[in-house]
C-alpha cells in the first residue's frame, strides 16, 4: 500500500520508524525538537527529549559528539541544518569520521547518519544556500546520497541509519520547502547505495543529474524532445558510491554526456564524472562532455543575481545542444 506524502514527511517517517525499530537510534542537532523546516517535527512527542536532543550551536563539536556516541554502539542521526555549516565540521567529517574505522584497524565502527539541507533559491544569500557536495567527496570512508523524491528520501535515509558506515544524506531545500510530494509505500523498505535510476530513457544524449537538478533535467529533456532530441535522464541518487554501471550503459548507448549539479563547477561532481568518462568511457564518447553547474562566484542576496547564478532547464538545454 502506498500513499502520497511530502519529501519532508518521508524523511520524518524514516527517522520515526527506525527509532521505533532500534532503541539505539536517536536524533540530535540544533533545534531538532521544534524543527525549523519540519523534517524532525513531532519526534520529540513520541520519543522524548532524551532521544531527540537539542544541541548547542557548535557544528564541529556536535559532529564529534555524535561520532563518539556512534563509536559507542548507538546510531545517532545528526542534523547539520544547512550544508554551508558542514564547513564548520570539516575536521570531524574529513579527518576523523570517515577515517576512524581504518585507522583503528576496524576496531571501531561509526554508524552515524548526517542529514543536511543544501541549495539556493530561497533568497537566503551567502552562507545559507550552497551546495557543497563536491567538497565532501574527497574524504575517504564516507558515503554521500542525495534523494530527489519522497520514495528515495525515505529508502535512502533508512538505509543510512542502518548502515555501519558514516553516511551523509543531502536534502535539497527546494524539495523540502517546495512541499514536493510522491508515492511512498507504507511497508518497511530501504534502498541500496550506489544505484542511480534512469528517470527518462533516451537514445541521443545522457544527462546525469544530482538531486533537485533531476527535475530541471527532465524539463530540459521535454523541451528538447520537441526539437527531436531524445535525452536520457539519470538521477544519480548516490554520489559516493557512484553508479558507474548505469552511467556506462547509458553513455554506451548515447555517446554523449552532460552532467548537471547545483554546486559550483570547479572540482565539482561533474568533474569526477567527466574524468571517469574521459578515462573509462573514452572510447564511447562522440562529443565533448558538458558540465552544467554554478559559476565560481559566491551566492548573492539579490534575487536577480541568485537566479542568474543557478543552473536550470535552459542552461541544460544549451549544454545538450553543444553535444550534438
Amino acid at each position: 500500500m502506498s500513499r502520497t506524502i511530502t519529501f519532508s514527511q518521508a524523511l520524518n517517517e524514516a527517522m520515526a520508524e527506525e527509532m521505533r525499530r532500534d532503541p539505539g537510534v536517536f536524533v540530535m542537532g540544533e533545534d531538532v525538537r521544534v524543527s525549523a523546516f519540519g523534517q524532525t517535527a513531532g519526534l520529540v512527542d513520541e520519543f522524548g527529549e532524551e532521544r531527540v536532543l537539542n544541541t548547542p550551536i557548535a557544528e564541529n563539536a556536535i559532529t564529534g559528539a555524535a561520532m563518539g556516541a556512534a563509536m559507542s554502539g548507538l546510531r545517532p542521526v545528526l542534523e547539520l541544518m544547512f550544508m554551508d555549516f558542514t564547513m564548520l565540521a570539516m575536521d570531524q567529517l574529513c579527518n576523523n569520521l570517515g577515517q576512524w574505522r581504518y585507522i583503528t584497524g576496524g576496531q571501531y565502527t561509526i554508524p552515524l547518519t548526517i542529514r543536511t539541507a543544501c541549495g539556493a533559491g530561497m533568497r537566503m544569500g551567502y552562507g545559507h544556500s550552497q551546495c557543497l557536495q563536491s567538497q565532501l567527496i574527497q574524504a575517504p570512508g564516507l558515503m554521500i546520497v542525495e534523494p530527489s523524491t519522497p520514495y528515495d528520501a525515505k529508502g535512502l535515509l533508512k538505509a543510512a541509519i542502518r548502515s555501519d558506515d558514516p553516511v551523509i544524506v543531502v536534502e535539497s531545500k527546494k524539495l523540502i520547502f517546495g512541499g514536493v510530494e510522491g508515492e511512498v509505500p507504507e511497508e518497511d523498505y530501504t534502498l541500496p547505495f550506489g544505484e542511480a535510476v534512469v528517470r527518462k530513457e533516451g537514445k541521443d544524449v545522457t544527462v546525469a543529474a544530482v538531486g533537485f537538478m533531476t527535475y530541471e533535467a527532465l524539463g530540459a529533456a521535454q523541451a528538447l524532445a520537441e526539437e527531436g532530441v531524445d535525452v536520457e535522464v539519470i538521477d544519480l541518487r548516490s554520489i559516493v558510491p557512484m553508479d558507474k554501471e548505469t552511467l556506462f550503459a547509458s553513455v554506451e548507448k548515447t555517446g554523449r554526456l552532460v552532467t548537471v549539479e547545483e554546486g559550483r563547477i570547479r572540482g565539482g561532481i561533474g568533474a569526477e564524472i567527466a574524468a571517469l568518462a574521459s578515462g573509462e568511457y573514452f572510447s564511447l564518447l562522440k562529443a565533448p562532455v558538458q558540465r552544467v553547474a554554478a559559476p565560481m562566484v559566491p551566492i548573492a542576496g539579490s534575487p536577480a543575481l541568485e537566479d542568474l547564478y543557478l543552473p536550470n532547464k535552459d542552461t541544460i538545454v544549451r549544454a545538450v545542444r553543444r553535444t550534438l
Partner: protein
Amino acid sequence: MNGQNDILEALYRRMILVRFMEETHDRLLKEGKIQLMGHFGTGQEAVAVGVTGPLRQEDILFGTHRGVGEFIGKGMAPKDIWLEYMGKKDSPCHGKGGLHLCDRERNIPGLVATLGSDFSIAVGTALASKMKGTDQVTLYFVGEGTCNQADAHPSMCMAALWKLPIVFSVCTNQFCELSYMCDHYPTGDVAPRAAAYDIPFEIVDGQDIEKTYEATRKAVEHARGGNGPYLVEYKTYRMATHFSGDPGTYVNRDELEEWGRRDPIVLCREMLLERGILSEEEDRKLRDGIQAEVDEAVEAAFAAPDPGIEDLFKDVYSGEGVIQ
C-alpha cells in the same frame, strides 16, 4: 546634563526608527513585496541602539542577523538597508549582501552567515587597530546562542592574551533560534565566561536604554584606553519569533506578555516625558517623521534598479573577472 538629554533623545529616536524599519519589513513581507525573510529584534531595541550609541564613526561594528538595530545605531542609512534587503544594484554591497549588511564608510565590515565565524574576525580587526596604533575600538555584538559556538573561546582568549581593544556585547534575549537559552546553557549567564580569560565583565538590564548605553560606554572607554577587552551582557527578550516564517509555537505566552510590559521604547518614552525632555506632541511628530523617512526610503529602494549579469562576475577578485 543637557548633553545627556540630547543623547537620550537621539537614542530614543533611533529605537523608534529601528522598530518602524522592522515593522515595515514585516508588512512588506506579508504583502509579498519583499523576498528577504526577517529576523526581527522587537523588544531588543535598547540593547542594539544603546550598545552602538557610544561608538565613534571610526570604531568597528560587527552586528548580528537579528534586525537592523545595531546597524541603524552605527549610522547606516535606511535607504541603504532597503537597497541591500531588496538586492538592488546601488546598495552598499551592490545587491550581494542581502541580509548580510556591510557599510565600509561606517566601519561595518559585514555580517557573517555562519554564526560565530566573526568572533575571530573581530579579534583580527582589533589586532590591526592595535598594530597600527589607532585608537579604534571593535565592538562585537552577539547573541547568547552564538556564544556557544566553538570560536567564541579562542577568540576571547586571543583578545585577552594580546590585550586588544575589543568589546564583546552579548545580547541575551532568552532564545537561541527555536529553543530557550536553558537548552543551550548549563548556567544562567554568559558573562562569567569572560572570567576564564581575566576579561572584566558586567551584566545589565537590556530594557533600559540608559543602562545599556552607559555600561557600553564604560566598556568602550576601557578598551580604547589600552586596557584590553571587556564583556557586557544585556538581559532582554525576543518579542518576535526567530524569523518571519516561524509561528513561535514553543514560546511561553505568559513570559512573553510579562516582558512585553517592559518594552524598552515605552520605558524610554515614559522617562523622557517624565523628565520633560519630550512632550506628547513632540513624540507624535517625531514618530510621524520617522515613519515618513522609512516610507520614503522604501519607495526609493523599490524604484532602484536590480543588478545584472555584469554584476554576477564582478568583485570576486580584486582584478577583473572570475576564475572558472
